[in-house]
């Protein structure tokens, strides 16, 4: 039997280790309760001063017992020991306290605590700036924030989308009865609670409800709920975010109580719940009191002491002093007394406490010191004594002699703070209520209501009554039931409570700045004097003080310290807490694993991949792939050991000298039909399609209404009132939405219909001087001569036995045929064309060669050579703008704006490096004078740059201010390595400037 385990509490034993030492706990323990049972006092070190710290709470509020679970790929950092369920073989270690919690380097810094005021890091480690990373590395290592695993997570995670009528958050007394009232109406109910068992505060309570012990009453209520088919019970499930339109997220821990890594199935899953109505029954956190050295191990929350005694059978000490401002904490004295261990005294700050429970404690012969404060704890790694003294009625001054109480455990209670986090997520502004000495949830912004302690109702009868009403009301508003109650009343035995005192900072015989540290936020060592110092330094806003002092920055996110901090701030500013206000809580309520957030969307499921019909052929040929949007496109086809550049040189020369083949299936394709199709298309493109006859194609540029190039491509007239529009690969969805926008919202009178057919067609582009000969071998029902089937024509025909459309359009400047067949025939056609081209050494090429070939021709790629600020004139493409179109096409008016006609706009030009082997980096800046001082006057930038094997030198496209009138000038591209490459401004068309080769 562990030394602090009560004999009445038994169960199967579980072995575990903490910081390398072996211990035993029992089934039902948390790691925290098991450590306390074993008498482990120091569980970590504080962030800044490295002070020894012990377990302080029993749930999500725990600031000190932050641990690392396990090792290796599945290790989990920064868990609260109070929320880790014990399992056989559990291994845990402190995150703070390198190299050990009992002695560490930062402990030395602790002795110099006064030299590290708030803002210490900002003030001290500011200069020199470049050393900050070094400082930060050291500080983090010494302070410790847990270690993230460096291997891939071995576990799997899931996401689940759910709808419900009523979501009940929290399964304490209020939540449970709310769920029952909602369930009986037939409403679909989800009730979630972060703990392993339902019951909330009642799990550690000895109260009776309707004549039954609380735990029995819970068990039968939970069984009743489980019997409903319309109720889903989610224990070990934290509702961690409340978002717009009643969308809430729940993290369900399915296997964390069994092992570090899931023995089977998914470890955790996130329920994404759209709830018609929400009942928040999230309870309250007890507030510590801020007294000197209140951080020594052995100081705990009163309710936590009671919880360890009543629920876990652990008495974490021997000689208890209770320090309270309210009646509630007297219960801890009663609970402790029952263990047979000593209650040294109850110290009550109030002058005249008169509640029933006060009398009950006195009746046991326990000393009650009224009008007293516990002003300081003494001890190093464990409380040894409590210093108490009479204080004045308002709790601001010590007014009598200090007395030492021999003690090893201090249970403190400054009242209760409603857990208003989720209502705060919705934007509801918390309201300070002096009656409960806490913030209540603000007026609802969404379909939610709070019930019980999270609403500031702390008595059990009140919680039950509110919970029942909230459940019935929520069900009714979701369309179920009439709002009436099945169980309107409960008979509960409890002491009636007298008002508490609003006390936060406990006075000391010395002033706050001189007294031993009085901690407000334990994890980050924020003390009362630190907050007062921040005010003296001029900080007034609670949000600023929070950031300056780091109040509420720890993993507990201020669940313990925030209210005390704000109260101390308010006092220092000489204003009320209501005036000071509170900081805003945001998701997540407690830390959520990235694994659960990612769910199944990892590795190959991270993003969908789109493949063309020839994808496997490309793979078999050893193609390297490039991502273009979600498409996987062949980048280049290396032959044994070829580099990218060598492969591209070979592929490019093959196209220029014989024939190449490209998988162009990914180009966006939109089928456009309707009597007004031509008119509509003409309004969208810069040029006209009104006279485009069936069998003809035309290249067009699409502008946004601001006159800037948005997409480009070829549009073919398939038949009267029937067109096929090609878009860029990446622009397909955007162009379709753009067409729909104008037709639906501006010109609904135009009869025209759009269908995406990108995936329906496969495109194989056969290009090069021998292209015609290749096509002739597989197609005998189309007259292929240049006279019968010219450039920018298209024909219906049969290719290798498959009905096909062939387009004579060219992105290489060579004779080209783009063969389109229904996608399922893609691979057949591809292989037929490869076979037909064998005698010409037909060469498959990828996107890199495609880019080089088009750049040699000065053909732009929208999104690479343009960036949303380029007009057709900027791109030297005035020829594509129809000047005489009747309708003012999209973007036309903007081409006359003063800014678009200005002279020194960036304009597309070619750049030829003076040394042909120099290839400019894409994105390089262009300057006119390489010797000028930094910052240089930047005149443009390189948009595309390659080595051209056909030309035997590098080529580049660039946009340069006033570039069109600068042909022949030499410009410079300064590089990061200090070199500067000189280049001549030339025409953007490097190859076949007359464009004869595509017309043969």
């Amino acid at each position, binding site marked *: 039997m562990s030394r602090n385990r009560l004999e009445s509490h038994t169960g199967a034993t579980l072995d575990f280790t903490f910081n390398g030492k072996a211990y035993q706990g029992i089934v039902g323990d948390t790691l925290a309760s098991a450590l306390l049972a074993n008498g482990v006092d120091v569980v970590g070190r504080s962030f800044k001063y490295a002070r020894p710290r012990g377990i302080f709470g029993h749930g999500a509020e725990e600031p000190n017992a932050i641990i690392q679970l396990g090792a290796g790929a599945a290790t989990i950092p920064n868990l609260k020991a109070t929320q880790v369920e014990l399992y056989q073989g559990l291994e845990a270690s402190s995150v703070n306290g390198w190299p050990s919690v009992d002695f560490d380097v930062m402990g030395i810094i602790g002795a110099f605590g006064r030299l590290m005021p708030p803002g210490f890091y900002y003030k001290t480690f500011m200069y020199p700036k470049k050393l900050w990373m070094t400082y930060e590395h050291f500080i983090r290592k010494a302070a410790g924030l847990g270690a993230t695993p460096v291997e891939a997570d071995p576990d799997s995670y899931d996401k689940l989308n759910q709808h419900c009528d009523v979501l009940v958050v929290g399964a304490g007394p209020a939540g449970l009865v709310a769920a029952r009232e909602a369930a009986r109406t037939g409403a679909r109910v989800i009730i979630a609670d972060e703990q392993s068992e339902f019951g909330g505060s009642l799990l550690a309570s000895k109260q009776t409800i309707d004549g039954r012990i609380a735990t029995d009453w819970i068990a039968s209520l939970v069984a009743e709920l489980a019997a409903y088919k319309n109720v889903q019970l989610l224990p070990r499930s934290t509702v961690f975010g409340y978002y717009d*339109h009643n*969308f809430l997220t729940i993290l369900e821990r399915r296997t964390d109580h069994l092992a570090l890594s899931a023995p089977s199935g998914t470890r955790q899953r996130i329920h994404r719940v759209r709830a018609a109505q929400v009942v928040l029954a999230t309870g309250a956190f007890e507030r510590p009191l801020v007294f000197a050295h209140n951080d020594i191990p052995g100081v705990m929350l009163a309710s936590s002491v009671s919880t360890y005694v009543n629920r876990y059978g652990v008495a974490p000490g021997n000689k208890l002093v209770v320090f309270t401002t309210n009646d509630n904490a007297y219960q801890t004295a009663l609970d402790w007394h029952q263990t047979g261990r000593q209650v040294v005294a109850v110290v009550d700050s109030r002058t005249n406490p008169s509640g029933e429970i006060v009398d009950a404690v006195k009746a046991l012969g326990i000393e009650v010191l009224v009008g007293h404060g516990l002003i300081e704890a003494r001890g190093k790694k464990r409380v040894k004594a409590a210093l108490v003294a009479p204080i004045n009625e308002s709790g601001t001054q010590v007014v009598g002699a200090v007395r030492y109480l021999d003690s090893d455990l201090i249970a403190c209670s400054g009242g209760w703070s409603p857990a208003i986090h989720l209502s705060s997520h919705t934007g509801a502004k918390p309201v300070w209520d002096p009656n409960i000495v806490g913030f209540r949830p603000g007026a609802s912004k969404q379909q939610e209501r709070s019930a019980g302690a999270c609403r500031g109702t702390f008595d059990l009868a009140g919680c039950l009554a509110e919970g029942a009403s909230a459940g019935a009301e929520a069900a009714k508003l979701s369309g179920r039931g009439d709002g009436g109650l099945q169980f309107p009343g409960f008979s509960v035995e409890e002491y009636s409570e007298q008002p508490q005192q609003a006390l936060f900072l406990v006075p000391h015989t010395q002033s706050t700045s001189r007294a031993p540290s009085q901690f407000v936020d334990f994890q980050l060592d924020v003390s009362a004097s630190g907050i007062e110092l921040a005010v003296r330094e001029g900080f007034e806003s609670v949000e600023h003080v929070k950031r300056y002092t780091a109040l509420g920055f720890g993993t507990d996110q201020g669940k313990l310290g925030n209210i005390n901090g704000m109260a101390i701030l308010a006092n220092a500013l000489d204003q009320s807490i209501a005036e000071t206000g509170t900081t805003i809580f945001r998701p997540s309520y407690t830390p959520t694993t990235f694994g659960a957030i990612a769910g199944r969307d990892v590795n190959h499921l991270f993003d969908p991949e789109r493949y063309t019909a020839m994808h496997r052929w490309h793979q078999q040929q050893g193609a390297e792939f490039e991502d273009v949007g979600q498409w996987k496109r062949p980048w280049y086809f290396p032959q044994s050991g070829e580099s990218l550049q060598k492969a591209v040189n070979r592929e490019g020369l093959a196209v220029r000298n014989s024939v190449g083949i490209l998988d162009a299936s990914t180009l966006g394709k939109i089928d456009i039909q309707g009597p007004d199709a031509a008119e509509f298309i003409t309004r969208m493109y810069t040029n006209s399609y009104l006279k485009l006859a069936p069998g003809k194609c035309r290249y067009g540029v699409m502008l946004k209404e601001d006159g800037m190039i948005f997409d480009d491509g070829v549009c073919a007239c398939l038949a009267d009132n029937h067109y096929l529009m090609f878009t860029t690969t990446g622009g397909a969805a955007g162009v379709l*939405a753009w067409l*729909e926008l104008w037709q*639906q919202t501006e010109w609904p009178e135009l009869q025209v219909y759009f269908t995406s057919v990108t995936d329906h067609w496969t495109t194989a582009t056969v290009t090069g001087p021998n292209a015609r000969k290749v096509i002739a071998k597989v197609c005998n029902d189309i007259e292929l001569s240049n006279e019968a089937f010219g450039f920018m024509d298209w024909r219906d025909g049969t290719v290798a036995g498959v009905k096909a459309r062939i387009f004579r359009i060219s992105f290489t400047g060579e004779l080209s045929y783009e063969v389109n067949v229904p996608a399922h025939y893609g691979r057949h056609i591809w292989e037929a064309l490869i076979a037909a081209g064998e005698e010409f050494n037909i060469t498959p090429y990828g996107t890199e060669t495609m880019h080089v070939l088009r750049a040699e021709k000065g053909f732009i790629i929208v999104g690479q050579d343009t960036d949303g600020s380029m007009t057709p004139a900027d791109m030297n493409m005035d020829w594509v703008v129809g000047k005489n179109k009747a309708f003012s096409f999209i973007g036309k008016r903007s081409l006359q704006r003063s800014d678009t006609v200005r002279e020194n706009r960036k304009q597309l030009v070619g750049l030829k490096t003076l040394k042909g082997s120099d290839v400019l980096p894409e994105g390089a800046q262009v300057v006119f004078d390489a010797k000028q001082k930094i910052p240089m006057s930047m005149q443009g930038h390189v948009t595309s740059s390659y080595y051209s094997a056909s030309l035997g030198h590098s080529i580049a496209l660039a946009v340069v201010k006033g570039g069109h009138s600068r042909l022949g000038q030499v410009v410079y591209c300064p590089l990061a390595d200090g070199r500067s490459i000189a280049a001549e401004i030339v025409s953007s068309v490097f190859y076949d400037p007359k464009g004869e080769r595509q017309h043969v």
Partner: protein
Amino acid sequence: MLLIHCPHCREHREEEEFSYGGEAHIVRPLEPEALSDEEWGDYLFFRTNSRGIHHEMWYHAVGCRRYFNATRNTVTYEILETYKTGTQPTITGASA
């Protein structure tokens, strides 16, 4: 995440099915060339940026592929109504 009622599908669907289309009820001038640069600039670039009631276009991109309008409170994100293109909102800044 918003829950949006598509007036064409007549269902509430998740926000991820939709894309935002900007302020609604902005009519393209019939004769753009007749406008001054300033007037054209107003049409192109200037929006009301309302605090509170705002009428805006949404596109049911992976649903029916229809544009429609929504009246949304830009402070609370509450969507007060959705209505088809070409019709007028019943809730306006004046009525709310």
